[in-house]
């Protein structure tokens, strides 16, 4: 008997010469033009928090360097556990340490936490409401390595998990601000991470910005469009808003770094103001992320503005260079601006 494989096959798009870029290494920082950067904000913030709180320990599954936890490990080697390439015991052991009174920060890639270690996060950590802080690099589409490394559905997975708080920071300001708030929060937290040289974006647009857990904050006012965004898409929305302002399109940006619990009070107040087009923007599949959460929240309150979603399609995404992929899947500044123009 001869049987053929039924697996899918990649079909090249045959990009013209000159439009092809090289895939960058995973350790590379996310590029954002025109912004100052902060080196390893998570590692720095964790050291500062750990100096004040002796309960804090750090654990990783062979991805210390790729989650900026190595900065903490170098500074406080006796507070750090290298767990090896074993995400299930990474999460279980973090739960065990939390049972004994410690506050573990466990790091890996978002794909491995959400896919491989999910049952351990669900039962050993979330069901027990233990203060394990899970901090994961490569959220959404932030690598060109393809679906094995692209955590396009991590938020959808963790949104369904009771007790779990979910943070998708935009920039270095958010990351520096979120670490102490994660420590102050009683239960488990899942935080997405940007690592390496991380741009400082929010304070450039709003100098007094400060991360507040569970709060959505307006970063920019605008009469025509309200973009409700999270994670790095707030960065893109702000840049797109500057671009659209040149065309006399006035775009407000409401930044929601905390996805769960979602600040629906602020979102509803903003969305019901002034008859603006409401657009959600997230670095995540449109299934089960910020967009659907906002839509459900607004409809449940009887608020039904003109509503559109920017996010990743319900597909396994391609491999390639990140700028190419962001353009292709609609996360680039140009594509965000273009979509908003079309929808107005």
């Amino acid at each position, binding site marked *: 008997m001869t049987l053929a494989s039924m697996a899918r096959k990649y079909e090249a798009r045959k990009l013209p010469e000159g439009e092809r870029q090289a895939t960058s290494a995973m350790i590379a920082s996310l590029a954002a033009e025109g912004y100052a950067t902060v080196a390893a904000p998570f590692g720095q913030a964790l050291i500062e928090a750990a100096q004040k709180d002796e309960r804090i320990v750090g654990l990783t599954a062979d991805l210390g360097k790729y989650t900026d936890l190595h900065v903490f490990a170098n500074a406080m080697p006796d507070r750090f556990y290298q767990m*090896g390439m*074993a995400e299930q*015991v990474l999460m*279980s052991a973090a739960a065990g*340490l*939390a*049972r*004994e009174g410690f506050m573990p920060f466990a790091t890996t890639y978002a794909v491995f936490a959400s896919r491989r270690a999910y049952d351990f996060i669900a039962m050993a950590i979330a*069901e*027990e409401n233990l203060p394990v802080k899970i901090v994961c690099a490569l959220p959404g589409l932030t690598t060109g390595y393809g679906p094995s490394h692209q955590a396009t559905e991590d938020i959808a997975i963790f949104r369904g998990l009771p007790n779990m708080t979910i943070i998708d920071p935009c920039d270095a300001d958010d990351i520096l601000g979120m670490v102490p708030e994660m420590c102050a929060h009683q239960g488990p937290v899942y935080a997405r991470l940007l690592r390496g040289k991380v741009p400082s974006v929010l304070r450039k647009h709003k100098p007094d910005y400060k991360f507040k857990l569970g709060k959505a904050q307006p970063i920019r006012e605008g009469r025509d469009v309200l973009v409700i965004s999270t994670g790095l898409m707030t960065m893109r929305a702000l840049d797109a808003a500057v671009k659209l302002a040149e065309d006399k399109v006035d775009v407000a940006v409401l930044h929601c770094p905390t996805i769960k619990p979602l600040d629906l009070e602020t979102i509803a107040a903003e969305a019901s103001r002034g008859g603006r087009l409401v657009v959600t923007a997230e670095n995540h599949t449109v299934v089960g992320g910020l967009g659907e959460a906002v839509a459900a929240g607004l409809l449940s309150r009887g608020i039904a503005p003109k509503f559109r979603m920017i996010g990743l399609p319900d597909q396994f995404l391609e491999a390639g260079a990140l700028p190419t992929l962001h353009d292709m899947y609609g996360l680039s500044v140009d594509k965000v601006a273009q979509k908003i123009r079309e929808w107005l």
Partner: protein
Amino acid sequence: MNLASSPVARSNVSLALRAWNIRRKALLMGQVQGQGYIGQALGIADVLAASYFHALEYRSEDPEWEGRDRFLLSIGHYAIALYAVLMEAGLLPEEELETYGMDDSRMPMSGMASYTPGMEITGGSLGHGLGIAVGMAMGLKRKSNKAFVYNLMSDGELGEGSTWEAAMSGAHHKLDNLICLVDFNNQQADGKSTEMLCSEPLTEKWQAFGWHAQRVDGNDLAAVVAAFDAARDLTQAKPRVIIFDTTMCKGVPFLESREITHFVRVDADEWDKALAVLEEGKPA
């Protein structure tokens, strides 16, 4: 030899009688529900008796005493057996026995930490206990707390990859305060464990993973006690495992001889019969 600090544990009641009491309480709980994982409970009773009345340090009046040895039930469905020993040890009031598995009971069918005093973790999603035990053992060392962490798991859980991640981790981190107890009753949901996903040669496997490993008859109290002593007294900087070969339904011969399954069938009129048979074998 380590004596448990509980006055109950220091009493003159023999381990054999403790094991018998555990079996009896488990049968009474099974009778309440008309069902239960009674085969496993009867099989593991001797190991639990040796755990709570020979090996573990704890205080009956204070289940969360910081100095206690931690006993993790990775196999959540063995809760019926753990409730029985917790009652015997004075950690759970015996009056609650008849609430087992009922609405509003502190004793759900599958063990959960938030429900029951003395239940350290929520088991049931199999292959979780040993990893949590690794973290607790690390935590105890950080606190310079000399307590041991015991993790009771089943032979079926040896099929879970997470068990072996945790096994490697325990050895890598030299967790000499970690003692894993494996109930090898050679039975899991679909049949004999050795026919589902064979874990043999098991002692050698644990040794290869860096553990001090013993394998004993889990229904021979003297052998069980000796194995606990050897595990606790070992001075090598490595975690310890004891594999207990046990007989499902031990102590109730007509159930022992029944075609044994994961969820052993006991008819409504057989609970009294089982209790009567057990009564005949009551130790002095």
